[in-house]
């Protein structure tokens, strides 16, 4: 359901252009929150590990 204020999407868009990894991570979390489940803790942990790994790769690329 698209019940978000379009301003939120604007903010995420700006964040993605400034800091794509964080922008993607937050966007992913927002999508997950749109369909809340009882397993949020595990989902968050998986996402944190996934994006943190991207973070390390990104740093090593630099």
């Amino acid at each position, binding site marked *: *359901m*698209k*019940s*978000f*204020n*379009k*301003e*939120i999407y604007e*903010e*995420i868009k700006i*964040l993605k252009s400034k*800091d794509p*990894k*964080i922008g993607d*991570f*937050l966007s992913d*979390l*927002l999508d997950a*929150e*749109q369909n809340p489940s009882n397993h*949020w803790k595990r989902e*968050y*942990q998986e996402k*944190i*590990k996934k*994006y*943190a*790994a991207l*973070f*390390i790769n990104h*740093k090593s690329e630099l």
Partner: protein
Amino acid sequence: MRVERIIFRNFRQLRAVEFLFPHSQHDLHLFVAQNGTAKTNIINGINWCLYGDEPHISRGSEKLPLLNMNCLEEASDNKNEITIVELYISVDDEYNIIFKRIQKFIIKKDIQGRNKPYENGQEFNVIMQRRNSTPEILLNDEAVNNVERFIPHKIRDFYFFDGEKLDSYFRETTGNRIKETMNKISGIDLLKTILNRLQTFLLDITRDIAKANPKADNTSQQILFKSNLLKEEEVARDNYQEQIRVAKQRLSDIEEFLKDSPDVISLEDNRNQFKKQKIQITNKINKAVKDKNELLYRVGRLVLLKDVILDVNELIKNKKKNNELPPRIDRDLIEDSLKTKMCKISNQDLPPICITEFKKIIEKFELSTNVASQLTEMGPVLNQFENEIKKFPDLMKELTVSIVDLEADLKKSDDSIAEIDNLLSNYQTDKIRNLAEERMELEKAKDSSIGRLAIEVESIKNLKNDIEILNSKLNNELDKIELNKSRLAEKELIDRTVRYLENIIDSLSLKIKQKVQERTNELFFSLIWKKGTYNKVIINDEYNVELFHSSGFSSLGSASAAERELLALSFILALHNISGFDAPLFIDTPVARVAGENRINMGKVLGNISLGKQVTLLFTPDEYSENIQRELSHLTKNKHSLKLISNEHEVKLEDL
């Protein structure tokens, strides 16, 4: 989101009524019904279906059963009956959802042979069909969760509301409630949920990392301790805010009930005073009557003998004057004293001079007659009688007047008691007294919560400051130790996301608040007739709405009911507009308190809004005046009236 269809079965006066909401260019739907013709039942029915309550129920209807009266009267003994409301909504062409609530009843006859409905269980279910998917039936908690997901209970007042209550909207709604609503419908709440969850992970990861360094571990434990404390304080703050809101809401309801009611407590106090006074007066009357009776008994019979008493007394006085009466002496005593030559009073020997004098007295006494002696004794008694007879008329008059005056006072007290009884007999005094007492208690509780809230707010501010200092200290300490790369990356990821999120939340809150403020101003000044009276609407940092007079003073309190209603409507429409929450708008009696130019403007605004939003308006015939018809009637074909049929227990829907 749109309401597509509502089906009522046996819901109060809506025995078998179906409302359809076909979409056209203007998504506008008009219903016209006299008061008492189920108009408000439509909004109550929607609320009952979704949330199980009827927030706009009138005092009269509260006492009536939910089950339609005709259905109840026609039912046989022990028959099962049901009330059903079904609400069909569509969401962004993606979901079709049916919310359905069923109340079961069993009908039994009471001792007078009348049918009475007894509740026999309730069911609530949701049928949800996502596009290209099979329908899913949700029951119990899952069904309730889906209501919360699509039409949260917390913000229902922003789409189903009573136009007549709009003027008291800002009195009943605290800034905090508005802030909560804005956060909810704009999605900021979701961001806050993510923020809280990430902060929890951040604390865990930081503690995990800090274990490698005792100093950092200590600091991280302090952060954890303070963070937990902060959470507790925030919960306490929210509780106090909620308590204040609930108290204000209840106080407002009580005020509404008591505004036309007498001050029962004072009146009852007065009545008790009059009753006490009455007892005192009655006691005084009884005493005066007793005194009067005693006087009559004692002096009244003397009055009958007045002439005799006066004559005899006069005779005695003359005899005395002529020395025809002996002095008042005790002959036996004198004779005895002479015999013993000793004074029987002082027990001393009599001196010769006394003996001579006593002998003279005895000689003189020998000369008196018994009658003369009796006359001498009667003199003082008759004098007293004469005095009492003289005073008798005045005393009688005084007592009589006093009794008459007291009886007049008694009548006044009786009249006052009767007047109060009469006044109170027209009201539900027990309820009024209880409400007045509850109001006093609530005022105290509210003041206490306001005081505690201020303490919590200060404490939260201090804790946040402490945590920030500790975090900076921890980062310095962590810089000095070798860290696990992946844990560090996780920490950095969350750290940065949390910082971005905090900034986004702050900036969004500010932007949304400013936009709502701008839109409220635009709408309010397009609606209001007196363009020059007010200068601007400000939504302050505490989300309190203020209306500024052109002279610069805050003037919401002195604005008229119509002006406050226009402001509240402007504010609600601005919230809908800015939040992006695509909800329908149902307004009961939208223009009841607005007349003339304001009413025309209101009609125009509601018509314009219906271009992008589903708007359903429930008018009384008076409201649906020519000027409103001119503004709205041509915008929609979905126009109906609700009419009572037969015995007024049912309504039917007719095209307008």
